[in-house]
């Protein structure tokens, strides 16, 4: 029965967070619909932002992404691509496309330790574009190199495989300007671009993915971002701002020592460090989520890549929880210490073990006495229905505030895949997380395979 109660308690918590998301969704809808962006996006009063784009072997997508980033509706910003020792032609395609030349004695003002920077490339015809070429050191190391070189007080980390909507940055900046003293980090909404029509570095027509793996991830992201992060943001308990798209106050990122290198999960780590720093120094602060600022990303579409990604996430999560175990149930850290961290340890990090042991116990119990098959069935139904209800909730949130998927057939497809997710995909997620933990114990610290395909190929009809 413990397993059944565990499932019920964890789902009641999920429901509470989703409930908070529902509480906020109308406010989000209104601010997204009635806020004025046309004046702001041409205003000198908007803070300047340095976009940091770490790139490792991104030769297929990088040019389109840089063009996308250089044409945002934003008054003053710079794009800093950090080539993290790519073994492909990422650097040379950039140099060729933008006719870049190596800067002589470039000015690097920052002090965060990074791997050796081999050079910085620039072309005065594209004054807001800089390419940092450095020795391979990982994503965190690249972001730190970008911070050291950046010129503006706000930084935004963006994955090189992601496309920002033209208004995404100004929407985040509006949120920042409404509370500039307290806002230390703002996360954007990450959506799956597979299946969408992409032209000139922008998503022109939104469609659901055609392949099965990205489709599952599409539902998963909707659930995590709309169902989860809006609620967590409401109680200032966000534990992560997605590495794919986030905005940060540079002074505080530097105050916490920049990104932690040498291990995945740097996006969660920086947010935990920011919480810890602000709470330790008794400074008022907010880590917020801005769902109307959208970034489209390429989701892995093969088993190998998605399993690698999920194992990496599992490893990163475990590492972060172990590193910050001192915050657990520590009243000094308020919502983070009393709710977010315990929730993450009990219901995210350790979730697979509770579920697996519960399931094994139930199976054993049922095998011993077949008359108890009802309990097993109840356990499965509980898991499935509560999870499905959360997915339905996330789709309702999407329909209330954003309505990106217009067709009725899209709705059916989302409802169908929300159910199918529990037959195989969900279980694989549990296994991948356990495998990630094993990798952690074996001190396997690699990023894993992550191949890209060109945006052009992606948007071609199947």
């Amino acid at each position, binding site marked *: 029965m413990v397993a059944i109660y565990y499932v019920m308690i964890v789902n009641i918590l999920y429901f509470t967070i989703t409930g908070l998301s529902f509480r906020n969704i109308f406010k989000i809808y209104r601010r997204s619909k009635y*806020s004025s962006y046309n004046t702001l996006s041409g205003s000198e009063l908007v803070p300047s932002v340095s976009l940091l784009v770490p790139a490792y072997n991104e030769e297929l997508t990088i040019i389109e992404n840089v063009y996308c980033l250089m044409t945002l509706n934003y008054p003053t910003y710079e794009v800093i691509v950090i080539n993290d020792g790519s073994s492909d032609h990422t650097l040379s395609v950039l140099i060729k496309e933008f006719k870049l030349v190596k800067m002589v004695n470039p000015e690097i003002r920052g002090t965060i330790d990074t791997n050796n920077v081999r050079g910085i490339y620039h072309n005065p015809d594209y004054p807001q574009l800089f390419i940092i070429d450095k020795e391979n050191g990982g994503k965190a190391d690249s972001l730190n190199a970008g911070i050291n070189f*950046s010129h503006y007080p706000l930084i935004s980390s963006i994955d090189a495989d992601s496309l920002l909507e033209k208004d995404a940055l100004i929407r985040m900046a509006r949120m920042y*300007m409404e509370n500039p003293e307290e806002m230390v980090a703002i996360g954007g909404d990450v959506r799956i671009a597979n299946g969408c029509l992409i032209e000139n570095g922008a998503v022109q027509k939104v469609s659901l993915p055609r392949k099965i793996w990205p489709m599952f991830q599409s539902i998963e992201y909707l659930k995590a971002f709309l169902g989860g992060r809006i609620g967590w943001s409401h109680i200032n308990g966000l534990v992560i701002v997605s590495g794919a798209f986030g905005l940060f106050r*540079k002074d505080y990122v530097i105050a916490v020592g920049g990104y932690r290198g040498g291990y995945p999960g740097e996006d969660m780590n920086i947010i935990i460090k920011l919480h810890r720093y602000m709470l330790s120094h008794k400074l008022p602060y907010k880590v917020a989520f801005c769902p109307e600022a959208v970034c489209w990303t390429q989701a892995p579409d093969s088993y190998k890549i998605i399993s690698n990604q999920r194992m990496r996430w599992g490893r990163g999560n475990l590492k972060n929880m172990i590193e910050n175990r001192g915050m657990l149930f520590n009243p000094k850290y308020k919502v983070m210490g009393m709710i977010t961290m315990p929730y993450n340890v009990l219901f995210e990090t350790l979730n697979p073990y509770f579920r697996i042991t519960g399931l094994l116990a139930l199976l054993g119990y049922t095998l011993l006495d077949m008359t108890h098959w009802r309990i097993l069935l109840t356990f499965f139904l509980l898991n499935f229905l509560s999870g499905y209800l959360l997915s339905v909730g996330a789709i309702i949130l999407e329909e209330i505030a954003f309505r990106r998927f217009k067709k009725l057939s899209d709705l059916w497809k989302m409802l169908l895949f929300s159910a199918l997710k529990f037959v195989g995909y969900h279980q694989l997620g549990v296994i991948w997380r356990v495998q990630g933990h094993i990798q952690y114990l074996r001190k396997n610290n690699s990023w894993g395979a992550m191949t890209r395909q060109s945006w052009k190929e992606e948007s071609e009809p199947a």
Partner: protein
Amino acid sequence: MFSHLTVAYTFIYVCLGLIALGIILLIQMKVSHNKEQQRREMYERKHHDYFMYIQAHVENEGALRLPPGKLKPLERRVIQDKFMEWIEQFKGECRDRLIQMCRDAGFVEADLKALGSFRYGRRLEAAYRLGGMRAEEAVPALLKMLQEGKYSSMSIIIARSIAKSARKSEDVLEMLRSLLSHGKPIHHLAADIMLETGLDAGSLLMKLLDDQDPALIKVGLVAMWGQAVPEVMPVLGRLVGSEEKDVRAEAVKLYLSSNPALKDETIVQLMNDRNWEVRAAAAKALGPLHAAGSIPLLVKALQDANWKVRHNSAESLAKLGEAGFEALCQAALSGAGIQREAALQRIELEMEKEQEHSAIEQMVAYNKKRLIHDRYFGVKRQPVARVTGVAAVGGDYTA
């Protein structure tokens, strides 16, 4: 065991019920949203000729015709949206005529009524629309709505509507006062909202700068960036001596950006100010002023703890002719640490300008700098060796 299972069954039934409800709600929402979208498109097509008529006659004298026939609520909304879009785009008489059209068609009246609605969503939507239609009669109600609400993104939407609709500067000031009463340092956003007003910006800025409230003065100072308002210069001169640290820094930056004549003791005072923003602004101003006497001060400022001050000092030295550039070369060769770094970077930038000169005078000036450079660093043009790690000393991120 039975009671445990009963709890689980109840949980399952509740989930099932909620799922069924959720799916029904989803389908209902999707169908109604799609239907509304289709009807909107249909009405846009239906009134295409009317929209063409308005666009063709909006610049002509005389009243414009109202939309023809009896309109359905959504149809009215489609026309109102189009009018609001044009009000944003047009200026002057065209805009006034469209605003009058909104009144004549009853759009303003309907939204004024909606401001009293029980539902907050309707009230906010009405506030947004009234701002879009520049409805001055809505300002008192909007001000009340702003003052009664808690500070949030919604306050910003209401404040923008007030700024757009107000015809009296007192209303804009009242709106700013209310917005800033929550103690948030939102001066940049408040200035952006204020600049949406159709009122004369010059007199509004004067009122802001003359206000007793430092927060309002800051909004005025921030809003002045990029605005040429000569009549505020005397007020700025007074604010330079303000006791409020932020106000003083902003005032000094603005004052110096207008290239005023400065006395020697003022220059010394500003370059030694405790606030880095003031020092940086002073360093930046000295170059265009061609104040060759300030070279020693600028050379000293190359060692300032703040990057921006060092950067601006080097930039100004490069603008102070041969003497300034020579001082820069000396600092690069004999100086150390951050001073050397700042000087070297500026020298590199100046030497890179070689390709850009077309005018004879510029070429002569460049060649003189080139000669000075070669005297210090040798004839062969090659990058000056960088002392790696030096930039780390005193590095900061205050862009």
